[in-house]
């Protein structure tokens, strides 16, 4: 009756705007990606050079440069996020409000077009985010993996060669340092009972700082097993974490009690996380 249900909704202007907005969004992200590629590829040799030149044991100059570059990449993410909110989602909301109801046959076609447009834009943004993650990890890994095992073994060898060379400052009696220490510690002279302070070398002190990374290097194969499991296996994670902490405790036995608390917390956090897909 009255042909109410046969009425078609036509809005060629909106179709044109959808196509134009999508094109602009794709071009905008393309440009950001090109800029990101240019910056990151040009930064890699520079970053490696700074890492090699940096004499600081903590490689802080390299760290500062890396943070600066990561900041630039994050700025691009912010720009893309802002554009997504202002130009894509706002446009969709505005257009939707002007369309006939979704349940009516008149507006259904246009609603579906808007949904497709939304999904295409979001998928393009996801591809942009993937690239961003790729470039960020490329920057992170530019220095390559350090051979911490060789460094640790070198420190042990040095310590073995010097552990019997110390004398008490009070009486001159020989003092043997029983085991390697990574922080300053009191050593009692066996002859005059004077409390001497043993201060480890800078290299030995650095072992404490690098112990966790070394333990992670030793157990990297277990972490890989966990990461490759689908769905992510809590059992494999626990196996990795236990071995990593055991290695860490072997390197720095003094921190075993504190590390155990940390281990339990990480395990609990993992059990309560939702990323087990």
């Amino acid at each position, binding site marked *: 009756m009255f042909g109410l249900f046969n009425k078609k909704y036509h809005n060629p202007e909106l179709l044109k705007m959808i196509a134009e907005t999508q094109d602009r969004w794709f071009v905008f992200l393309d440009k950001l990606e090109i800029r990101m590629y240019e*910056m990151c590829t*040009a*930064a890699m040799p*520079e970053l490696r050079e*700074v890492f090699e*030149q940096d004499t*600081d*044991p*903590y490689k*802080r*100059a*390299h760290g*500062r*440069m890396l943070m*600066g*570059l990561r900041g*630039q990449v994050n700025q691009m993410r912010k720009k893309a996020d802002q554009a997504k909110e202002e130009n894509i989602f706002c446009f969709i909301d505005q257009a939707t409000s002007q369309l006939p109801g979704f349940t009516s046959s008149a507006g259904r076609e246009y609603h579906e077009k808007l949904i497709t447009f939304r999904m295409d834009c979001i998928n393009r943004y996801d591809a942009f985010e993937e690239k961003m993650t790729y470039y960020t990890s490329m920057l992170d890994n530019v220095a390559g993996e350090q051979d911490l095992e060789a460094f640790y073994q070198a420190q042990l060898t040095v*310590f073995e060669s*010097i552990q019997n060379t*110390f*004398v*008490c*400052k*009070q*009486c001159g009696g020989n*003092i043997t340092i029983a085991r390697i*220490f990574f*922080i300053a*510690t*009191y*050593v*009692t*002279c066996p002859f*005059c*009972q*004077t*409390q*001497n*302070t*043993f*201060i*480890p*070398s*800078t*290299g*030995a002190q650095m072992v404490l700082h690098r112990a966790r990374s070394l333990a992670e290097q030793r157990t990297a194969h277990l972490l890989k097993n966990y990461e490759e499991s689908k769905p992510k296996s809590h059992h494999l994670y626990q196996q990795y974490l236990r071995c990593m902490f055991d290695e860490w405790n072997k390197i720095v036995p*003094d*921190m075993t009690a504190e590390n155990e608390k940390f281990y339990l917390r990480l395990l609990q956090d993992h059990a309560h996380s939702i990323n087990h897909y």
Partner: protein
Amino acid sequence: MDKTGGKRTLTYLEQLKQKTLNQENYGGVIKEEDAKIEVRDCPECGAGRAFNAGLTTCAYCGFKFMDVRLSDGVHIKKENNS
């Protein structure tokens, strides 16, 4: 200065590199030092600090090496109080 005589504009990367290299590290430059042994003699009587009498006061003249009470740490224990 470039060939045209104008001031060369540094690219972002060059500026960043220069800044990161020029910035002073917090705490200054870390010097590589060998392991060593030190001792703290009593400034009052010159006696060495004896372990058996605790670490906080001089076993001979009672001079206070430190005012704090020691608590359990990695190598120091609360039993080390004089």
